[in-house]
């Protein structure tokens, strides 16, 4: 048996598969497997003898799938298919036989004269030949038969069965189609002469009514005015040669393959039953299934036979069902089983608010299951909702576990972590600049901190609010200054900052008197002990000289002069020596330090003659000690011992 396998183009397969997939929203999809194997059948159709060279014949082929081929024993053949009917069109065949028909034909000639030829030709369009006179001449008083319109005629009518009446024939009514002249009135009034007076026949049909019968056709009209002589003729005439055709057509065709309709059972986590509706009017010879997309050839040796209309599978995927009918037609159909659902639902969540809060947080969980769908969500408190969404409100951070269950029974824990609930107030710390005692303002550098949501704003003691973690605030008096820290979640805390290092209390210890000595015989001539200063204050103190001037009480009065008054003080006369002196004062130390001066402004002598009240000598650190020292330029010519008294006035002020 010749087998024809028809395969669709792969592109069509894909397109069809897509269409099926989209058209199966109920949970399974069918796969259009384009592999059907057909067995061919042959039938012979005889198109009976006919003079028609081109003939058609329609034959019904049961369960016709398609016509594979058509052949004919002669000529050519074409065909068309409509359902299970195949119309065969044969043509141009050779005649199967020929035949020349003959008959005895009669004819007559009518003439106004009684003179007729011995023979007349006969040709009725089918038969033709020569007729010889037959019988004698007859006279016809009713004119000649006319064949063409025009004029006035007697009429002769017959019924439609050509049952002629004998004219004149009682006709109750005669009429004609529009445009034809016809007479009117009662025909009985014109038994013989009726027509010639009234009929003006232009061709076409006449209509007559008589004997209670309607619509009879007038066939023959005779010329009333042309009485004639009629000679009959007869003879054998022959028609044209006839050709007879007989065709034998061989039709090769295939019958319909089995049909397979597949469906799968509902969602299951264990097995899915595939229902295979297989039908074939010719009966099923074999039915199998196999996993994957298979061809019919696969099932020649592969596949699993099953009986009945269902089989069971345990995994999702493509399956192929195969069926072969009694004719040997085989086909496959695919199904994608996707009702095996072993995957639990998945979840997404949203938190409201999503940002930091010091209140509650609503957890909205949305479960999704692409297979059997979501059945329910169990909330962390154990309650369940039969929905794919659930909302659960919490007031503290933590991990909250929801249980998502699909319609197959698969379930999964879905933990949601909430970590943006912040109910703890922020804290803050501050540093003071300077952190040591000062007579000036103190800058408070404040830093808020919050380990969770973070610091949002800091409100200063003056009520202004700054965004961010840090701010600074300057104060000039001791006291407690409140900073209010607010975190992102809205928690607020007031943090007092104590400032107690501002002071303007000055306390300096110094000698009540100091001595200098001028000994012109010694070197150096001028000696003076340091004037120690100890700053007992908590803050640095500025040391200034208000005055350095002679006071009463000495045995000699010496005038303070500028040191440049004499170019060489060693050459002063006794009078000059005992009149002038350039007495100066300076800071003894030459370098600063934490325990002494923080600033030295007068490293050279500040002479009394040049002194401006309030001249700053330096700054003593808090708790620091430093020295002032006297120096002098003086003459040597001291003729006697003297005493001289002066007063040094120092000013100690906040720095």
């Amino acid at each position, binding site marked *: 048996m010749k087998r024809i396998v028809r395969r669709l183009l792969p592109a069509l397969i894909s397109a069809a598969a897509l269409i099926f997939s989209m058209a199966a929203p109920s949970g399974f999809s069918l796969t259009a497997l384009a592999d059907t194997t057909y067995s061919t059948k042959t039938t012979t159709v005889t198109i009976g003898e006919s003079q028609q060279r081109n003939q058609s014949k329609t034959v019904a082929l049961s369960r016709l799938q398609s016509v594979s081929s058509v052949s004919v024993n002669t000529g050519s053949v074409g065909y068309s298919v409509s359902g299970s009917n195949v119309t065969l069109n044969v043509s141009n065949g050779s005649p199967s036989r020929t035949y020349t028909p003959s008959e005895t034909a009669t004819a007559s000639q009518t003439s106004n004269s009684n003179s007729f030829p011995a023979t007349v030709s006969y040709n009725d369009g089918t038969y033709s030949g020569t007729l010889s006179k037959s019988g004698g001449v007859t006279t016809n008083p009713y004119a000649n038969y006319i064949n063409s319109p025009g004029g006035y005629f007697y009429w002769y009518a017959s019924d439609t069965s050509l049952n002629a009446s004998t004219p004149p024939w009682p006709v109750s009514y005669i009429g004609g189609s529009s445009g034809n002249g016809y007479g009117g009135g009662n025909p009985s009034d014109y038994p013989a002469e009726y027509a010639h007076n009234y009929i003006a026949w232009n061709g076409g049909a006449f209509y007559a009514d008589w004997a209670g019968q309607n619509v009879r056709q007038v066939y023959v009209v005779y010329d009333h005015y042309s009485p004639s002589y009629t000679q009959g003729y007869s003879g054998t005439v022959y028609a044209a040669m006839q050709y007879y055709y007989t065709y034998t057509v061989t039709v090769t065709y295939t019958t319909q393959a089995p049909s397979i309709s597949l469906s799968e059972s509902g969602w299951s986590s264990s097995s899915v039953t595939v229902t295979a509706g297989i039908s074939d009017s010719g009966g099923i010879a074999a039915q199998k299934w196999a996993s994957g997309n298979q061809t019919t050839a696969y099932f020649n040796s592969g596949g699993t036979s099953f009986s009945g209309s269902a089989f069971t599978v345990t995994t999702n995927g493509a399956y192929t069902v195969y069926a072969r009918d009694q004719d040997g037609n085989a086909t496959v159909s695919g199904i994608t089983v996707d009702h095996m659902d072993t995957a639990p639902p998945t979840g997404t969540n949203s938190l409201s608010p999503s940002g930091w809060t010091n209140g509650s947080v609503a957890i909205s969980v949305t479960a999704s299951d692409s297979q059997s769908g979501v059945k329910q969500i169990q909330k962390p408190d154990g309650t369940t909702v039969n929905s794919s969404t659930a909302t659960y409100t919490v007031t503290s951070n933590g991990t909250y576990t929801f249980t998502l269950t699909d319609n197959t029974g698969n379930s999964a824990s879905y933990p949601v972590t909430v970590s943006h609930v912040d109910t703890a107030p922020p804290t803050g710390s501050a540093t003071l600049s300077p952190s040591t005692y000062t007579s000036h303002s103190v800058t408070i550098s404040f830093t808020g901190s919050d380990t969770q949501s973070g610091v949002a704003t800091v409100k200063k003691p003056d009520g202004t609010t700054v965004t961010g973690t840090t701010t600074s605030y300057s104060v000039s008096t001791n006291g407690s200054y409140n900073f209010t820290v607010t975190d992102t979640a809205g928690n607020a805390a007031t943090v007092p900052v104590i400032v107690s290092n501002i002071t*303007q*209390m*000055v*306390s*300096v*210890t*110094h*000698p*009540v*008197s*100091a*001595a*200098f*000595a*001028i*000994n*012109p*015989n*010694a070197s150096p001539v001028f*000696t*003076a*002990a340091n*004037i*120690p200063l100890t700053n*007992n204050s908590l803050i640095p103190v500025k040391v200034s000289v*208000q005055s*350095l001037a002679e*006071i009463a009480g*000495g045995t*000699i009065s*010496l005038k303070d002069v500028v040191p440049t008054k004499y170019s060489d003080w*060693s*050459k*002063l*006369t*006794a009078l000059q020596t005992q009149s002038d002196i350039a007495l100066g004062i300076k800071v003894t130390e030459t370098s600063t330090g934490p325990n002494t001066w923080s600033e030295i402004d007068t490293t050279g002598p500040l002479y009394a003659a040049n002194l401006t009240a309030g001249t700053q000598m330096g700054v003593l650190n808090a708790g620091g000690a430093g020295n002032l020292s*006297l120096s002098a330029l003086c*003459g*040597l*010519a*001291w*003729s*006697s*011992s*003297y*005493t*001289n*008294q*002066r*007063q*040094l*006035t*120092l*000013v*100690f*002020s*906040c720095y």
Partner: protein
Amino acid sequence: MKKGFKKLLAGIVTIAMLTLAAIPVFAANTTDSGTGSVTGNVTINGTISPLTISVTHPINAAYAISPDAGTFTAPDIAVTNNTKTAVNVTVQSLSASSGGSLTFTDVDPTAKSWNTLSLADSKKYIALGILAKNSTGWSTGYNTSTHWAVNATPMMVGLLNPAATGTMTLTADYGLSFDGTYTANHNLVFLFQLA
């Protein structure tokens, strides 16, 4: 014949030694306290010592009168100022003193006719003077006059700068009638003063 000289200086040196020992001594401390600014007073007590005058000079000088030769010879008297400052050199006094075989009476050089003086007057009168020998060592403006012993008024010779040495010399008018060898003494007193 030689005459002896003495000087007058001891009192001044003693004073200078006492002032060198003076040392400044501090008094007690005080603490000044207040708000913002306080004033502290320190009394400065100055002690001034006198300058020691130091001059080097010979403690005696001998002169000789030779009547036969008609000469009066005497060594230079050099005075060196060791003081830190300049000092004025004054001949405070030059007067005859006892202790020799003769004791002259100082007279003005114009008071006698020295070449005709008798033995007795030669042994009694002399006009002895002292003067700067030259300008060396002396500051400009030194005194070129002669201080005669008969004059009681001191005579400043000149200013000696520190480390400078000025030279003085003796001069005399005298008689020639000496009948033997005699000795006579004069005291020469300098006054050194701070300039």
